[in-house]
């Protein structure tokens, strides 16, 4: 009698427990979808060719957001130029050359540290070093350099993981056939790790594109009458623009705010989806 009852209790507990967990998960997932749907529905009416290709008028309250879009593209590009080669090279070092000693341990702690520094502290650092000390001024250059250092740990971690996933046996065979370590990396390890590295790079740049605090004092401008000409110019940027129009501009039309948010969201989603697609296609095509 007692055994049967306790089994029913346990099954009941399991059913309740699983239901609770499913509820929790749904409560986490549904808001994500809701956010996307909400922004799309509220922002879509504002999207037009003029909006995407025109300049703002009337103190941001009308017109388009082209300079912000272009500015974000420039910043993302600038970040890529500095952080991608450096990050991949550092990952190659950690995965293929470094031995497990105190120095390697220190490098890893440094990377963990860089990953955890608040974005506004990066802004302060960028201000101190690039804007003031190196006298680049409030510029695309200063902002890109700041964003690059912030993006570095993401790229290094993802790249190192991708490199380590390549089977050790490939390296052994390559060396046994008379290859040097660099030849092995260049011809086998790096090409095989490339999809994983690419995914990490895209996700890192996605974050950089959406960040506001690091560019607040290093490169972002509220309003510029023209597009930037050189890396030493300041620039408008989508996340900063959204921040300004939703908090600093009185009587700002809601529609334009949502439109800007939608463009930013689209940017981020595009990169996210690209990264996911690359990852799953690579998994299917793997030759090991």
């Amino acid at each position: 009698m007692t055994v049967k009852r306790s089994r029913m209790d346990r099954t009941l507990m399991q059913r309740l427990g699983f239901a609770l967990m499913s509820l929790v998960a749904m409560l986490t997932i549904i808001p994500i979808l809701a956010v996307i749907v909400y922004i799309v529905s509220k922002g879509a009416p504002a999207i037009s060719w003029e909006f995407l290709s025109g300049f703002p008028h009337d103190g941001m309250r009308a017109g388009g957001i082209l300079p912000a879009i272009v500015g974000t593209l420039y910043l993302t590009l600038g970040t890529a130029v500095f952080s991608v080669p450096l990050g991949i090279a550092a990952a190659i070092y950690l995965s293929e050359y470094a031995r497990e000693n105190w120095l390697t341990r220190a490098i890893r702690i440094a990377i963990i540290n860089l990953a955890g520094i608040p974005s506004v502290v990066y802004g302060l650092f960028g201000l101190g070093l690039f804007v003031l000390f190196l006298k680049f001024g409030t510029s695309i250059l200063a902002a890109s350099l700041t964003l690059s250092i912030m993006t570095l740990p993401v790229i290094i971690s993802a790249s190192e993981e991708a490199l380590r996933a390549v089977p050790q046996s490939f390296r052994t065979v390559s060396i046994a056939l008379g290859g040097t370590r660099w030849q092995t990396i260049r011809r086998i390890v790096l090409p095989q790790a490339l999809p994983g590295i690419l995914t990490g790079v895209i996700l890192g740049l996605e974050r950089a594109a959406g960040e506001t605090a690091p560019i607040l004092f290093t490169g972002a401008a509220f309003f510029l009458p023209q597009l930037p000409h050189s890396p030493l110019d300041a620039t408008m940027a989508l996340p900063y623009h959204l921040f300004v129009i939703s908090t600093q501009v009185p009587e700002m039309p809601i529609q334009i705010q949502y439109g800007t948010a939608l463009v930013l969201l689209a940017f981020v989603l595009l990169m996210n989806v690209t990264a996911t697609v690359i990852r799953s296609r690579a998994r299917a095509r793997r030759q090991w």
Partner: protein
Amino acid sequence: MDKKNSWQEFVIPRLIRASGYSAIVFVALIFYFLLREGLPALAEVKLGELLSQRWYPIEAHFGILPLITGSLIVTLGAMLVAIPFGIGTAVFLSEIAPRWLREVLKPLVELLGGLPSVMLGFLGILVLSPFLRIFLNLPTGLTALAGSLLLGGIAVPTVVSIAEDALDAVPMSYREGAWALGATRWQTIWRVTLPAARSGVLTALMLGVGRTIGETMTVMMVTGNAPVMAIALDSILHPVRTMTATIAAEMGEVATGSTHYHVLFFIGMLLFLISLVVNVLASSVVFRSKKRAERVLS
């Protein structure tokens, strides 16, 4: 080997090695600049003043305690959200959901982690805080609560991703052993799998805390920006100011080299140190438990 090859063989490994060391260089640089511009604050403002409860730079009151309590209460609130939802979702994805559902939901959770904080702050202003104001009958919805809810949402993907990896890493044999002894799947999760993944889950939570303390834009947009001491129980329903929001909001208006400027850098230095401690702690948990596991298995 031709000449071009041996040039490559000489230069490239050295460049790679130099890149490897770069992380250390950058951390040192960041620390140096924060110190350089932040330490003068200690000389210009008396320590007692710095630790006082009044933050009003216009009248040269630089008490940072309200900012610290502001950060703390928002972080605490955020973790109260992130822990149950983060671990619950991780458990669901790793142990309960069927394969296909997991493949669909995981990228969605990752997507949340990629959403710009300014966008969530934006929605916070337009949607969440009016809702809180009406629903909880408050004078304003721009409160620590709004910040905690949003920050909890931002921390959840970090917690889910790492906790889920940790649960995934628990060997199947642990679960199979428990089932063979007659435990239900539910019992197994809570009594076997989760404890086995303990260190990874702890790491996930600590990294979630790190992410939360460091958030800037969202809190700046929804917490009301009132630098008051947030130590009463109902403080969460009041506006507060975090350390990060203070820097972001005021840095644009200070004169370079002024006392206010130095104090803001000082706060930045504090944030750097806090995140250093949290993140190094989180990673050492992983290192230590790996070593323990090696000892047990050898």
